[in-house]
């Protein structure tokens, strides 16, 4: 490797002729992605790039460029962002800003929502065998990792829950299909919420497109109210 003395910063004038100069689109892409707080999707990136650049190819190139670095280019729900390499977490601990510790109930509920989505509160309770406290749902909603996505077309029209992009981002998942152990779960048929286990192997989906048995949320659905015990027969039996 060249010594540092030889690797001095070139003068700006030298850049265009520098043989090491990287393709401009890679410079633009990395600048955009470095600067942004949020992951950026292909369309947004393409809009900011010069005409004629194949952004997909450039992104793949950039991802390869950074694969071995301390900072990697990753994809979350079809959006691109830089993240520090996960193998360096030991070094980064000091950056931690008091991460919230979820209760066991909340963690289980989150997992059920992730693996069974879209799923209703009653179905979550069926799996866990206990009534869910309003507080647990509130805590999960606050994380921004789950969202009510529609209403099941069944009596009572209960809310259906699913995970968000922030969920994928939090757990470093590119797509929901990357959920750990998902394939085994599908294989055992344990993802079917109906008992006894059926023949179909349902796969969780966070596709915002509603399922056939889902209605959209109404514009005036006040979710705050919807989640309160009063509106929820599950907990109205009182404590």
């Amino acid at each position, binding site marked *: 490797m060249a010594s540092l003395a030889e690797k001095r910063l070139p003068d700006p004038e030298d850049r265009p002729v520098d043989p090491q100069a990287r393709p401009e689109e890679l410079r633009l892409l990395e600048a955009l992605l470095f600067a942004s707080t949020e992951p950026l999707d292909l369309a947004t990136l393409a809009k900011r790039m010069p005409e004629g650049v194949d952004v997909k190819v450039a992104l793949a190139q950039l991802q390869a460029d950074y694969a071995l670095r301390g900072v990697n280019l990753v994809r979350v729900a079809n959006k691109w962002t830089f*993240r520090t390499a996960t193998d360096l977490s030991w070094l980064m601990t000091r950056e931690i800003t008091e991460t919230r510790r979820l209760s066991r109930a909340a963690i*289980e509920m989150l*997992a059920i929502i992730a693996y069974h989505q879209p799923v209703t509160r009653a179905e979550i309770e069926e799996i866990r*065998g206990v009534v869910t406290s309003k507080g647990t749902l509130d805590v999960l909603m606050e994380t921004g990792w789950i969202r009510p996505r529609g209403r099941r077309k069944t009596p009572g029209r209960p809310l259906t829950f699913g995970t968000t992009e922030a969920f994928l981002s939090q757990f*470093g998942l590119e797509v929901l299909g990357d959920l750990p*152990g998902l394939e085994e779960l599908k294989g055992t048929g344990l993802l079917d919420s109906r*008992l006894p286990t059926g023949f179909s192997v349902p796969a969780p989906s966070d596709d915002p497109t509603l399922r056939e048995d889902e209605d959209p949320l109404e514009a005036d659905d006040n979710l705050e109210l919807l989640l309160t015990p009063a509106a929820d027969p599950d907990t109205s039996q009182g404590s």
Partner: protein
Amino acid sequence: MSAEILSFETGQPAELAVGEPALVVDVEGYEGPLDLLLALARQQKVDLARISILALADQYLAFIEAAQKIRLELAADYLVMAAWLAFLKSRLLLPEPATPDGPSAEEMATALANRLRRLEAIREASNRLMNRPQLQRDFFSRGDPEIIAEIKHPKFTATLFDLLTAYAAQRQQRVLATVHLAKRTVWSLAEARASLERLVGIAEEWSCLDQYLMSYVVDPSQKATVFASSFAAALELVREGQMELNQKEAFAPLYFRKRPPSVTGAAPAPDLSVK
């Protein structure tokens, strides 16, 4: 945990004395009967798919019984599950009726085993999920993102209707405003009376009304209205006995004065030659 003291071979509680420390279980530690069942099932140390539901039912019932012996308050859920398991156990032990009504005992047992497997599977999944590297814990986003300056381009909206309404209203308003200014100002009766009352208050002697009025008329075009209103107001004040009016002949100047306090007879005619 109390499960250790339950013998699943016999399905009966092991020898234990009431109040034995091991039995002081915190049922609150379990998240409901299913959680408890799962914990008990794990004691069988076999694949949940091959678990003995009969043995599990016995363990559970023994647990509940033990808890009740020490008057441990149990949530209704636990008792419901106990009743259901007792029912299931009896059906598992009895020969199946020739025409089974609803699911067979075997099916019910399988369903319960599946519920337990599913709960266990989701627990396992949640562990694996939470053990994944997490954002801002194990890997990090850009700590100090750069500010993207926003260059605002205003896009104005207005419709032709807005434009025409504004134009018509404006032109019309100006035209009507001019008409309004051309209107004569009228000296109201009330104004005339108020002025006269002030005058009468100081006019002990006969004075010429016309002369007083003239001082009010700044704009010659107002002369008629001032005269008309004052004359009407003057007649009103006379009728009320506050003042007296005197006129030599038609169209001659009008004289007025404050009515004297004691009226002893007809007032003498003013000495017109004086003024």
